[in-house]
C-alpha cells in the first residue's frame, strides 16, 4: 500500500469537512472549559488549507503538508494554530520530497508530529490536551512495526486508541492551556483539542482504507 499526494489531498478535504460539520460541537466543548472558539478556529483554518490545495496538488507530499502547516499557523490563531501547524510542518520534514508514502514513513511522520506538539506546547501526557489522544495512537503504530499484522488492522487499533485517549481526558484535571485556569472544575469535560485530534485520526484512517482498497484493485 502506498499513499499518494492525491490521498493526502482527500485526507485534508475530509478533515476540513469534519471540522465544518463538527464546528458547533467543538466550540461547545471549548465553551465548557475554555473560551468557545475551537470549532470556529479550526473550521476557518482548514477551509483556508482547502483553498490552498489546488496550488500544491501536483507537488510532493512534504510540500503539501508544509503548506498545510504554514496555512494553519497563519489562519487559526489561538493555541491550536501553532500546535497543529507545527505538527504538519514536522510531518512534512520527515516526508520532504516524498512522492508516495509507505507505512513506515507514515508512522515516522506521525511520531515527528507528536513530538512537535509536545515541544511547542511544553506538554506531556495526562494534562488533558490533544497529546492524550495522539500519543496512544502513535504508541500502537510503533509497537506493531516489524510484525506481520496488516497495516490497516494496526491503524484500526490505533484509531481506537486515539478514541479511548480522547475519552480518557474527561476525568482528567487540566494543567495546560486555558482549561487549567478552572482547576478542579475542568474535571468531567472532554478536551476539545483531543476531540479535534480524534477527527483528524478518523480522516487519516479513512485515507488508509481508500489507499488499501485501491491497492487491492490494482493488484
Amino acid at each position: 500500500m502506498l499513499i499518494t499526494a492525491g490521498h493526502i489531498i482527500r485526507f485534508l478535504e475530509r478533515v476540513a469537512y469534519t471540522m465544518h460539520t463538527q464546528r458547533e460541537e467543538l466550540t461547545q466543548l471549548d465553551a465548557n472549559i475554555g473560551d468557545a472558539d475551537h470549532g470556529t478556529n479550526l473550521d476557518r483554518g482548514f477551509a483556508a488549507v482547502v483553498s490552498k490545495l489546488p496550488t500544491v496538488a501536483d507537488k510532493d507530499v512534504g510540500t503539501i503538508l508544509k503548506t498545510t502547516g504554514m496555512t494553519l499557523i497563519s489562519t487559526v490563531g489561538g493555541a491550536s494554530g501553532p500546535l497543529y501547524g507545527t505538527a504538519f510542518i514536522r510531518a512534512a520534514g520527515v516526508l520532504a520530497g516524498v512522492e508516495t508514502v509507505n507505512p513506515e514513513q507514515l508512522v515516522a511522520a506521525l511520531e515527528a508530529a507528536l513530538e512537535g506538539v509536545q515541544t511547542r506546547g511544553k506538554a506531556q501526557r495526562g494534562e488533558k490536551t490533544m497529546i492524550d489522544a495522539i500519543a496512544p495512537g502513535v504508541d500502537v503504530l510503533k509497537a506493531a512495526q516489524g510484525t506481520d499484522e496488516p497495516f490497516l488492522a494496526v491503524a484500526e487499533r490505533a484509531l481506537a486508541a486515539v478514541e479511548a485517549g480522547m475519552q480518557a481526558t474527561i476525568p482528567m484535571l487540566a494543567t495546560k492551556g486555558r482549561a487549567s485556569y478552572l482547576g478542579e472544575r475542568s474535571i468531567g469535560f472532554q478536551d476539545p483539542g483531543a476531540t479535534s485530534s480524534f477527527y483528524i485520526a478518523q480522516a487519516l484512517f479513512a485515507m488508509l482504507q481508500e489507499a488499501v482498497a485501491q491497492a487491492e484493485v490494482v493488484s
Partner: protein
Amino acid sequence: MKKLINTVEDVVKESLEGMAAAHADLIAVHYDPDFVVRADAPIAGKVGIISGGGSGHEPMHGGFVGKGMLDAACPGAIFTSPVPDQMLEATKAVNGGAGVLHIVKNYTGDVMNFELAAELAQAEGIEVAAVIVNDDVAVKDSTWTAGRRGVGTTVLMEKIVGAAAEGGANLAECTRIATKVNDHGRSMGMALTSCIVPANGKPTFDLGENEMEIGVGIHGEPGRTRMELKSAREIVEIMAEAILTDLPFASGDNVLAFVNGMGGTPLIELYIVYNELAKICAAKGITIARHLIGDYITSLEMAGASITLLKLDDELTRLWDAPVHTPALRWGA
C-alpha cells in the same frame, strides 16, 4: 443574540475600519495581516512597543496605539490570539532600528504565536524582546496550570513602557521596566454575567440570577468559583484581600488603583467599587497615589469588574504621568 453588528464575519474588520476613520491623526490600520500602527511609525531610534491579543477587549489593545504608548497592536479574531504573520509585519512596520518589545499576555495561544513571530523577526535581523504579563491572582501560579493570566496590569504596562520608549529608553531598559511593572502589579476579576461571542450566538456560560463568578478571566471563560451574589462591599473585600496578600502590599506603599469595567458595567457601579477599595486601602495604610477607572480591558458585554493594584515607585509614577495621546487614553498631550 442581540448585537449592534452587520454580519458576524465582519465584526473585527468593520470595527478596525471605524477606528481608522475616527483616529486617522493618531493611527493607521493595516489589513491582511491586520494590525493597528502609529500614524508616524517607524520612529527612527525609538524602541517599538507592540502588543496584541484576541479582539473583544476594546479599547485594549488598538485603542492604546499612539504617542507615549503602543507603536502597534495586533487584533486576533474575538477571544482568539492573533497569528504570527500579524506580529511579524507589525514588528517590521515599527522597527526604527532600536529593536522591538512584544508585550504578551500569558495565554497559551498568545505566547506561542508571539514566540513564532519573534523567531521570524529575528531571522530577518530585527532585535526582539518579549515580556509576559501574568498578574491574575485568581489563578494559582504553579506547574499545575498554564500560569497566571495576563489581565489589568497589561494596560498599565503598555502606558508605562510606552512612556519609557518615547523618552528614549533602549530595549534592555524597556524590558526591565516592563518586567518591574509585571512584578509589582496584581489583579482579580469578577463577573455578574457571561458574554456572547458573536460567532457562537449564545452566552459562553450561564449564571443564575443570584450568582456571580469570582476570579473570572477576560475571555468569557468561567472563573475559579461561583457563589451567591453579595454586596459590592463584600465582593471588593474578597478581591482586595486576594490581591493585597499576594504581592504582598504593605502599609506605607503607594499604589496605582485600577478599577476596570468588563464592558457591561455602568460607571456608577465602578465608582462604588472604587469607594470600597479606597476604604480598604486607607485602613491598611496604603496610599492610592494614582487611579484609573473605566472600561479599558473588557470582555465584550460582560457585566463585572476587575481590580488591579500596581505598587508605585518614583520611576513608575513619573512614567505613568508622562504625556500620552491614543484613541482611548490621553493626558498631557
